[in-house]
């Protein structure tokens, strides 16, 4: 798309003498487009862009919400990387979570959306509902706490003990050996949310005439159809789900906090997000929390850039 914009601009201006005038001319020509963008961008600037821009300098201050922010330079970032060993643990945990939950939840939601798309219309609605249900149920964590409960009445423990696989109850949520695995599983289970629904919409938006054409051209089975027609046709939805998967994978933290508490035993599932929440909403050191958020933002921005490069190779 951006390439196209350059091409149209590269056309020699007819009735103008400088680039500035030409831009003004284009803006005047497309006035209605700007009017259409105005309502959203007005609110978006007010409630997202200005707060983000205003909170970036907070990372350079010491701010406790009561006194006026005091400028302390790069000291926050210095202590983050040099003095704060918990932050280093948090980075390590976040990367582990991102590597395991991000790609897996992305592929999983794509596969499920595809399989559901193969069903007949009534079953489609039914299964979409079933797989989206965890996102609509507020008490989802309570169930997992029961399943992974540390005493012998916990569902997982009692089943495993009945089968004779383990002899004594395992502390799934407080033993540092199991915590990471447990949280990754629950996170994957929770991940059938927005990305999944968007992919479903992407599948439904594909022109059915393409499939008929494919059948005429000699496509034999579902898999050929998937790789030759479906994936190229829904490139933009794939990108959208990828962005959601990235931001979801790097901001993992709520699940760990709900299941294992904050801070978790030995910081085994402590992530950057948990660290930011710890300083932001418990200790009220907003300057430090902003610095943490900024680091997280930078990491996500780089990942997003890389993934877009890779995906655009396949989808265009």
């Amino acid at each position, binding site marked *: 798309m951006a390439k196209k914009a350059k091409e149209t601009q590269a056309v020699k201006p007819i009735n103008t003498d400088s680039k500035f005038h030409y831009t003004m001319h284009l803006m005047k020509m497309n006035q209605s*487009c*700007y009017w259409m963008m105005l309502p959203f961008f007005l609110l978006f600037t007010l409630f997202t862009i200005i707060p983000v821009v205003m909170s970036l300098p907070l990372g350079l201050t010491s701010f406790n919400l009561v006194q006026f922010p005091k400028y302390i330079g790069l000291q926050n970032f210095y202590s983050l990387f040099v003095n704060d060993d918990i932050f280093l643990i948090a980075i390590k945990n976040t990367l582990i979570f991102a590597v395991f939950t991000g790609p897996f939840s992305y592929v999983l939601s794509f596969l499920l959306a595809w399989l559901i798309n193969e069903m007949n219309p009534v*079953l489609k*609605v039914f299964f979409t509902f079933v*797989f989206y249900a965890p996102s609509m149920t507020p008490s989802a964590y309570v169930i997992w706490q029961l399943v992974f409960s540390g005493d012998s009445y916990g569902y997982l423990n009692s089943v495993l003990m009945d089968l004779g696989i383990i002899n004594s109850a395992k502390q799934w949520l407080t033993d540092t050996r199991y915590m990471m695995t447990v949280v990754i599983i629950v996170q994957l289970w929770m991940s059938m949310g927005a990305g999944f629904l968007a992919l479903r919409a992407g599948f439904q938006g594909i*022109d059915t005439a393409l499939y008929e054409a494919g*059948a005429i051209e000699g496509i034999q089975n579902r898999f050929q159809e998937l790789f030759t027609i479906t994936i190229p046709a829904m490139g933009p939805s794939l990108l959208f789900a990828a*962005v959601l998967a990235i931001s979801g994978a790097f901001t993992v933290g709520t699940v760990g906090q709900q299941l294992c508490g904050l801070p978790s035993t030995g910081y085994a599932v402590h992530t950057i997000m948990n660290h930011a929440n710890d300083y932001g909403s418990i200790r009220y050191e907003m300057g430090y929390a902003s610095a943490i958020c900024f680091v997280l933002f930078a990491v996500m921005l780089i990942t997003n850039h890389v993934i877009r490069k890779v995906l655009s190779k396949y989808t265009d």
Partner: protein
Amino acid sequence: MAEQIMDSLESANAKALKKLRKRQKRKGDIEKARVKKSKGKHINGSLGGDICIFILLFLLGLFMIFPLYYSIVQSLKPISELFVFPPKLYVLSPTGENFSNLFKVAGNLWVPFSRYVFNSVFITIVITILHVFTVCCCAYVLSKCPQIPGYGFANQLIVTSMLFTSTATWIMQFVIMAKMGMINTYWALILPQVATPMGLYLMRQNMSTINDAVIDAAKVDGAGAFRTCWQVVIPNQKPAIATLIIFVFQGAWNIQGGALVYKEALKTLPTIMTQIAASGIARQGVIYASAVVLMIPPLVIFLIAQSNVMETMANSGMKD
């Protein structure tokens, strides 16, 4: 020489005949496929595959639907069953006691209960309408008008903003709202929700799959940007809009005013439900009952939105 030519001609003839037969056979297949499709089945699928997929999805589905099932079961349990440990996964003597308790408490509130219901319904509807309208207009420009200056920058801005976490920004958001005098009004609940970038990016990505030729045709016919958007592009975006409505409705319905609204008469239904549920340990069943009650509107919207998306609607009138 002549014989060779004759031979090659013959073989070419035979090849052509073979091709023709193959094509006829394929044509038959296609006709069969058409018949199949009219029954609502997939064009390149087989019955065996369908059954395999169904079994797989069904088993995974049991795993996914579990918390929903559990919440409903818990809300129907009488007190004697609620405190059994470990909790049973079924209910022996279902009762509506929890629900009637919930509404009994709700009926004795200082501000009439209907006021909270009105607040939630009102802001949810306003947010949904405003969000869908502004997002559709903006997404059309961001996906289909690359000639305007600032196009690339605006797109980059939307994607980047989706990656920013709110932990650091909520203070500044509050400061801005306070400066504008929005705290303690409906505006504080409505406007920030209208401006979320996720829905915009969803619509933008979906609209970019629409054929440029259709938009050019609309332009030639004399339609302006606004008219092209609402009469040509939007009618072809039903699946995406259904998804957008589900997202925004669910988000809006679950708004917990929090620090933004502290006047009792402006609080939303989820806030008051949490307050009722949090006021005592003996109310275990009431917590689940309130969760179930709160879940109903998003569920209804979800089912309506999803089942209205007809496959045949997608890209109708998009033939080249």
